[in-house]
Structure formats: structure tokens, C-alpha cells
């Protein structure tokens, strides 16, 4: 069962010589067969649609479930042959994993075109219908086209036209490379960063206007946030803790760490100890409970999708 073996580079039915006529012929045959399959699916009666989609979903999910529950090979040597059918299945699963790992990404990348098409349709429509803000749509489409052109040209130059790697040094860049770098590093990355950072301003004004002690819950939330924020201000923490330590020394009270159960009356006044205790015994279990809830929900949803139990999910 090594028909999908990736480790073996020998030319066989599934692996051909790159650039050969045989390769292109097999690709063409594969396309024709796929087209035939799609035609058959189009002609499929309505009753058969749900089982087809469910079958695809189930088989794909089965791979990872089998990968988890089937014994995995230990200390497998590169040319080792399976000694039993069970070991053969484990070898097949291990060999197929890198291929399956990329399937999702390839499919998602192909489907990304849907989003791009929607964007072009929306803004193209605004330009054609002479919408009031069509100027901005022109700006959007021109920016999109510019970075696409520069991006592909730059990639093409680096991949096919620069075997020695000269373009790794900025001194060897031409107009296209400079343009691509300006658009990406100079504009896109900086604007991305600016958009993320603007949230800080909104947090500040929202906290100022809306963060009010009106109920027990909001008080608890604010107290927890304040304790954490003050514990991040190390200058304040060190000075405060230093004063507590000096007071403890003056009163002859020993140093201790309440987070590990040690006592020292005055050490409960240290901000770092309070923050550490709140983090360890209140915040961590609360966040863990949220993670458990989300995990159980994801598990339940995953099982329902995999087994086709979800009405109105993937199935028709």
C-alpha cells in the first residue's frame, strides 16, 4: 500500500519525471476524469446529494480519527516494509499525513477567489452605476491591481530570474522590487499596524466613558483589571513592595510567598503577591473553565459535522 508514498522518489505510476510528456498527459487525463466526475455529480438525483457530501466529510474526518486511534510506528526506518496489515495501515497513515495536511490549505486558497470576486463585483458595480463614492472604489481597485502586478512580477524575478540569490541584497533591486517593497513593507504593513494600534485609543475613551461601577459584576471586572494593570507597572510594584519589605523588616515579620501557602502577614500587602494569587487561583481557573466550555462545544460540533448529524450544516 505504498501508492501514495512520498518518501520514495522513484518514478512510478503516481510519480513521473518532472516536465515530461507523460506528466502533462497524466495531468490532462486527471482533469478529464475530474470533469467527467463533476458532470456525473451535476446529473445526480436530488436524493443522492446529501450522501455524497456526507461521504466526503466522513472520509476526510476518518483519516485524522484513525491517525489518532491507530498505533503509530516507532523508530521506523526509511526503507522498512510493513510486517503486518496493521503495521501497513500505520505506515500508510504516517506517509499520507503530509499530503492530507496540505489539502485544506490548497482548497482554502482556491476558494479565496470567491472573496476577491465579491470585492471586485461590489466595487466594480459602484463604479459602473456611478455611485456617489465611486472614487474610493477606483482607489481600492487601483491599489489592489498595483500590488498584485508588482507582487507577481517581483515573485517571478526572484523565483525564475535570480538563481544566484542576488536579489536578497537590496543593492541589486530594480524598479519592480523597489515598488513591491514600498507597497508591502512601506504601506501595507504600516497601515496594518496603525489599524491595530487605533484600538488603544478607542479602549481609552470607552474605558473613560463606560467603565462605571454600577453593579457587582462590573466592580469585580474592574477590580480584576486594575490589579492586573497595576501589577504590570513594575516601577510602582517595586517601590510599593520595597516599602512593604522595609516595614516587615522593621516589625520583624519574615518574608513569605502566599501563592505557595506561606504566610507573612505584611506580605499579603505586596502587589505582586496579590496579583500572583489572583492570577493563579481566580483568573486561571476562570479562563480554564471558558476553554473547557469552548473545547466541549468544538468537540460536539466536530462530531456532529463528521457524522453528518448537523442539520443544515454541510449536508444539503
Amino acid at each position: 500500500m505504498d501508492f501514495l508514498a512520498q518518501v520514495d522518489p522513484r518514478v512510478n505510476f503516481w510519480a513521473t519525471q518532472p516536465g515530461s510528456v507523460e506528466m502533462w498527459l497524466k495531468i490532462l487525463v486527471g482533469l478529464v476524469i475530474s470533469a467527467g466526475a463533476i458532470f456525473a455529480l451535476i446529473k445526480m438525483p436530488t436524493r443522492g446529494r446529501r450522501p455524497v457530501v456526507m461521504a466526503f466529510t466522513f472520509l476526510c474526518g476518518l483519516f485524522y480519527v484513525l491517525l489518532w486511534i491507530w498505533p503509530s510506528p516507532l523508530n521506523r526506518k526509511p526503507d522498512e516494509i510493513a510486517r503486518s496489515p496493521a503495521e501497513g495501515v500505520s505506515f500508510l497513515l504516517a506517509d499520507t499525513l503530509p499530503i492530507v495536511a496540505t489539502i485544506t490549505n490548497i482548497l482554502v486558497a482556491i476558494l479565496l477567489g470567491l472573496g476577491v470576486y465579491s470585492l471586485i463585483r461590489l466595487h466594480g458595480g459602484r463604479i459602473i452605476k456611478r455611485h456617489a463614492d465611486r472614487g474610493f472604489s477606483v482607489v481600492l481597485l487601483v491599489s489592489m491591481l498595483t500590488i498584485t502586478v508588482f507582487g507577481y512580477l517581483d515573485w517571478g524575478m526572484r523565483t525564475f530570474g535570480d538563481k544566484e540569490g542576488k536579489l536578497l541584497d537590496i543593492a541589486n533591486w530594480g524598479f519592480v522590487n523597489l515598488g513591491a517593497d514600498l507597497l508591502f513593507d512601506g504601506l501595507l504593513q504600516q497601515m496594518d499596524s496603525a489599524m491595530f494600534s487605533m484600538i488603544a485609543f478607542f479602549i481609552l475613551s470607552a474605558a473613560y466613558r463606560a467603565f462605571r461601577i454600577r453593579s457587582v459584576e462590573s466592580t469585580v471586572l474592574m477590580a480584576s483589571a486594575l490589579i492586573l494593570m497595576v501589577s504590570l507597572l513594575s516601577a510602582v510594584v517595586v517601590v510599593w513592595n520595597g516599602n512593604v519589605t522595609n516595614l516587615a523588616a522593621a516589625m520583624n515579620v519574615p518574608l513569605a510567598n502566599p501563592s505557595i501557602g506561606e504566610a507573612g502577614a505584611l506580605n499579603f500587602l505586596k502587589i505582586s503577591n496579590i496579583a500572583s494569587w489572583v492570577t493563579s487561583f481566580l483568573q486561571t481557573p476562570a479562563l480554564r473553565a471558558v476553554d473547557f466550555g469552548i473545547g466541549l462545544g468544538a468537540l460536539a460540533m466536530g462530531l456532529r459535522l463528521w457524522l453528518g448529524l448537523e442539520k443544515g450544516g454541510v449536508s444539503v
Partner: protein
Amino acid sequence: MTPEKPTFFEKIQNVDKRILYLILIVLTTIPLFPMFSSIVLPNEPAPHSQAFYYQLMSVPEGKTVFIQSDWTLSTRGENAGHIESLLRTVMSKKLKFAIYTVADPQAPGVYRKYIQSVNAERKRAGMKEYKQWEDYVDLSYFPNAEGTLNAIGSDVRKIFNKRVKDPASGKDRLVFESPVLKDVVKVGDVGLYVVITASNSFDRTVERLSDKTKVVVMCTGVIGPSTLPFFQSGQIKGASIGLKGAVDVEYMMKYGLNYPDSTGKIKVPWSGKEELKADPVVEGMTIARGSLYFMSFHAAIALLILAVTVGNIGMFMARRKKA
């Protein structure tokens, strides 16, 4: 009937938000000036930062470290400090590293810039630069984080079957022939697995690799709290969270952990783990970007706390006056 004039307390609840924005901009900019930025604020590293630094400094010299760098320039404020301090520590300890990303195709361009800048810094200081193939390998981008991480856990040599240029021969060779990866057969053979991220890619790493190797995380503050349950359960061995985490690591790079200075005083004690020690980093920069931003950070947080306090005082006093 003339409308009531707003009282002082009602006015302080309704300060124009643009004034707040301007104050924030001024308070975050002034401490960046050289006269302020050279001041090193005293610090008490958090327990999870201490654990992170201890794990990093415990890796034996010459061992390989995997660095999964999943961030881009949009979170430069925190992650740049992380990667710079990590690279400085790794290079000063003469550890080898393999660096790659599973989350963002923009990430390789970003981490390459920082490897170049730390190398340039080392060159200016007369220290040995790190060279590809001999000291580190750049494995670039792996699409599909879940599948890639599963594959790293089951057979790292199969998924990392890339070719990079060997400078000695000028030919492209498989990365596992390089001095960096020749002794790595499975992911458990690496000294440490470091995830630098601004997204939940560390979740996926922990899900798939935490039982196979030692994982530590350097992440932004947004996802920081979600690392703490994993730290508490031992699934990750340490975490450097946000700007404070970057400052903690830089501070420990300078002063060590449970490390006595020349006067015998321990500047950074690790409560409950007094027997575990980590040395300071002896060569290269230690206090850097994180500490540069830290004073501005103090000013910004103080402004937020003041704004919330003023708003609440205004609300209470206005209510009292009405009553």
C-alpha cells in the same frame, strides 16, 4: 426654562475624547526621547517569565532550538522585543536554531529582518555573526498550521524536507544534512521549542506537540491570559507575555535569575524555586526595545487608570449632588 448648566462632576465625565487621544499621544511620545529612554526602570519579572528564561538558559550549548515565528509587523510593539531578546540569548549561548512559520506568509520576511539586524549588531560589537546552514536554517512558511504541526510531531524529517543553499558547495541541499539539524531525528530531540506569536497558533502547537517536546511561548498581551492555564498544567514550560514579558526577559538577561551579583545580592529571586539558577547573558545587548517602550507604557496605563477613576468619581459625585 433655561437648561441646567452641567456641574463640574458632570463635565469631568464628558471630556472630549480627542483631548484624551492627544494626551495619550504626548504621554507615549515624550518618554521615548533619549533623556528618558536611557533610564532602566526596576522590575520584578513574573513567575511565567522567570520559568521561560530558566528553560531557555538551561538548553545546553550547541543544541538546536526550533523557533516558530508566527507574527508580523502589525504586532511589532511586543513581538519585536521578544524575537530580538530571544535571538540575542540564543546567539550568545551558541545554540543552533531552525526558524519557520506556520501561520502567516508575511512572517518569514519579518523574522529575516530581525536575524539580519541582530547579526549586524553582533558584527559591530566584534562578535561572530550567525551563518545560514552552519548556525541556523530558515525553513520559511508552511501552510496549514494544524497539518504541519501534526506532521512535525509524527515525522519532523518528512515535513521539513526543504532544500537550502549550502554556502560551502553553493548547491541546494536537504536541511537535515546541515550541522543545525543532522542530530534531530524527532521533535523531542530539540533543546526547546519556542513559539513567538500574536495569534492562537500556540494553541495548535500545544495541542499537538506539548507531549513531545518542551514548548515555551512568547506572545502578545491579547492572547497572554490564555497561555496561563497551559502554564499551570505544565503543557508549556514558560511564557513571556506582551511588552512586560519582553522587559522581564531583558531584565533577566542583564541580571540573571537567582544569580548573585558582585555584592552577593540576588536582583531577581525566583520565589519557591530558589535552587534553580540561570546566568545573565554575557555578550551583546540585553536592555533594549522592551525597556525603551516601558516608561511610555507606564504613562499610558497611568492615564487609563486616571481616566477610569475620574469618570467614576464624577459619576458618584454627580449622583450625590442630584440626590
